[in-house]
């Protein structure tokens, strides 16, 4: 029951509470949906940056390794797909909770 209350506290004040600029991700105020999304986004950022760095290194001739570059791109792609899957699940769970009152 405490879990559901925490969810309600997070949702009721409105959608702007989900944006990272209006609140800290670890404020512990029970905004579980926003936090889940922010955590998943942070997990994707590193592979994205590494892929961008690998592409830069390859196109500028600093690295001659095609497979390392493409591996970095592939890692970024997999983690991005992971983020999208997690995001879809989180949104789905959010909608599920919103339907409870109807």
């Amino acid at each position, binding site marked *: 029951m405490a879990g559901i209350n925490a969810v309600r506290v997070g949702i009721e004040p409105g959608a702007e509470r989900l944006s990272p600029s209006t609140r800290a991700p670890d404020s512990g105020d029970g905004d579980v949906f926003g936090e889940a999304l922010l955590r998943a986004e942070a997990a994707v950022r590193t592979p994205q940056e590494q892929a961008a760095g690998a592409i830069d290194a390859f196109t500028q001739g600093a690295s001659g*390794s095609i*497979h*390392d570059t493409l*591996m970095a791109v*592939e*890692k970024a792609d*997999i983690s991005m*797909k*992971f983020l999208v*899957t*997690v995001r*879809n*699940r989180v949104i789905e769970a959010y909608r599920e909770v919103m339907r409870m009152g109807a």
Partner: protein
Amino acid sequence: MNFFSAMEVIASGLGAERVRMNLTASNLANANTTRTAEGGPYKRRDPVFTTAQLDPHGGFDGPLDDAVKLVEVSDVVADPDPPRREYDPTHPDADGQGYVAKPNINLVEEMVNMITASRAYESGVTAMRSVVEMARKSMTLGQ
């Protein structure tokens, strides 16, 4: 040990095969080189592959990382076989008896090495593709 460690292991294998291909290219290009910086004809080069430790990723199956090894090129060695002696008195590098010391390179052997490296690279690419495919498949669990 995760999907990415399999990818890193395969990538190390691809890198090693690429080095082997580069050395084969060098051997083929220098099959008739009679002068080198260290003196004498070019000597055939071969890579030496060694296992290397994968960076531990931690996690509950972290100890399994020990079992997974990367491959790295630890050394490049020159073939100790003596140079091929060819009779060609007009060659500028011919010795007193008219023989030229040619590189100890056998074209057939180099072609076989080239095909081996290229097939090994292909198998690495196939393995990489199937790792990516596994990762994509596991993503469908969440849909």
